[in-house]
């Protein structure tokens, strides 16, 4: 299927009956989400209006589809949904109408037409074991498809923890040999938008940020600082309880009911970076901590294997105590042995002298 001729976003919005007001609201919301000053909304609007809708190819690999569900599942037209008016989503398994060969042809055509300019969005991890046979599309392994599609992309956007860090498939024992996108693609700019799933408005916001400002400022895990620059802990509304030493010790105890800090029931807020505590979910309805469950750290690498969701951060995740028992026994044995050996140096007839310790 041939892609649409490049027409401006402004035009597209008009064609789709999106009022200017709604559009401005979207720009304002995005600006404030990025903690930009009010004037930035106009900037974003201007930028978006001018550009032609960029081509976006969305590859879904070893994933649960939760990310696209998060983005699209809404019971009323959401501002996030507007993003699809801003971009030209030329390939996406769940949303596209095409199937089979025609879908793949559409992908390749979009790649050729927008060579060097299209944005490649990936969700899901890439299995490597046994030649990548654990996830294939159209007879191609994910690995092959990723490499082929990434070759001419302008940048990669890894949506969700699976593509960003390996996610669930990558968790112990990782039977499929799942890896993150950044483990494979080394020569293209990668923006990670992790989360399990990521907040929908964050996904949209990152895309808008990319389109408006180019590659955003990224942290050491390639996550946009605008959305992943603060830890949950530092923005958590329950923080005062942490400071006051008031914790829920177990679910549904007095502390839990009073809404106290969930550190002791395993909240990973202090080491998790995301926008959940500020932007929240479902149009700002709530987020896990507010609902009474500790943050599981889903936007961080290896969060599945990090010692359990219900063990506090300060507990060592390795729980095998037999090692410690062995250490004690070994210490006693070697200490006794070494000292018995030392005692052989002492002259038995003189040692210790009978009056030692009693001379003075």
């Amino acid at each position, binding site marked *: 299927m041939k892609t649409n001729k490049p027409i401006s976003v402004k035009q597209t919005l008009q064609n789709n009956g999106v009022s200017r007001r709604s559009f401005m609201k979207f720009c304002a919301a995005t600006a404030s989400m990025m903690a930009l000053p009010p004037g930035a909304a106009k900037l974003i609007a201007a930028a978006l209006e001018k550009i032609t809708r960029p081509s976006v190819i969305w590859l879904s690999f070893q994933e649960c589809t939760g990310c696209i569900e998060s983005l699209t599942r809404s019971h009323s037209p959401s501002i996030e949904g507007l993003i699809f008016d801003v971009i030209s989503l030329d390939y996406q398994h769940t949303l596209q109408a095409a199937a089979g060969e025609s879908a793949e042809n559409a992908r390749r055509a979009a790649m050729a037409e927008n060579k060097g300019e299209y944005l490649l969005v990936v969700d899901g991890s890439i299995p490597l074991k046994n030649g990548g046979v654990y996830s294939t599309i159209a007879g191609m392994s994910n690995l092959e498809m990723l490499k082929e599609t990434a070759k001419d992309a302008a940048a990669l956007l890894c949506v969700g923890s699976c593509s960003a860090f390996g996610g669930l498939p990558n968790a112990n024992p990782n039977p499929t040999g799942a890896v993150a996108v950044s483990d494979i693609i080394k020569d293209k700019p990668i923006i990670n938008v992790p989360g399990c799933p990521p907040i929908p408005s964050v996904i949209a916001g990152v895309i808008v940020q990319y389109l408006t400002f180019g590659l955003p400022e990224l942290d050491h895990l390639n996550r946009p600082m605008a959305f992943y620059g603060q830890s949950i802990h530092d923005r958590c509304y329950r923080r005062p309880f942490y400071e006051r030493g008031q914790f829920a*010790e177990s679910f549904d105890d007095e502390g839990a009911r009073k809404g106290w800090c969930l550190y002791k029931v395993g909240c990973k807020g202090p080491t998790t970076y995301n926008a959940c505590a500020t932007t929240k979910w479902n149009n700002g309805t709530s987020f896990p901590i507010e609902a009474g469950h500790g943050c599981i750290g889903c936007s961080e690498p290896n969060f599945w294997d990090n010692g359990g969701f219900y063990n506090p951060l300060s507990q*060592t995740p390795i729980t095998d105590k037999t090692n410690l028992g062995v250490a*004690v026994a070994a210490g006693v044995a070697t*200490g006794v042995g070494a000292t018995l050996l030392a005692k052989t140096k002492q002259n038995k007839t003189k040692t210790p002298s009978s009056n030692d*310790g009693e001379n003075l």
Partner: protein
Amino acid sequence: MTLLEFARGPALQWALIIFLFGIFFRLASIFVFHKNKPLSAARKPSFFAGFKTIFSRSIPHAIFRKRIGGLFITSTAWHLGFLFVLLFFGPHIDFFKGLLGVSWAGAPNSVVMPVAGFTLALLIWALIRRFRHPVLKKISNMDDYLSLIITALPLLTGLMASAHIEMRYETMLAIHMLSVSLLLVWFPFSKLMHVLLFAPSRKRLGEKLARRGVKA
């Protein structure tokens, strides 16, 4: 594996193993030696006196307060401060719960943090003093200096992590946990063993003196 995962996981695990091994290694190496059992007639029985000395020695005799009164206060303060931070900061209590299965009530951060800061200041002062005082200059060795520094590091890094100074929080947290691992590994092979040795040592002196009718 991130630094934090390493610090929380294998680093701490191995540190605990070495810690336990080392402690029992050192204790065994003392207690396997011959025990002196006096044959002379005791003036007074000394069994409980020995235990009493373990506690009474924590407070110097009044006559010495002129000379070491200030030192006594600062050394007690830093020990208590360290213990307080170790045992009553919420996340630390969870650490012990994971190891020992018991937990207890904690103190608010508004108390723990100043205590930690004050304790760290005392340790730094102690380190400076150790460089300057003539008696300490004469008798101090690497063990003394390193033990001070290694004990101060968890306090320093913990405060830095809490206050979000310098690095990213999880990096500072990892460094804090690594500093604890360092402390655990250093502990059995250094003078920090006095944490365990003070009791039997005081007890023995108390016994010896008490059986002679002398208050220890």
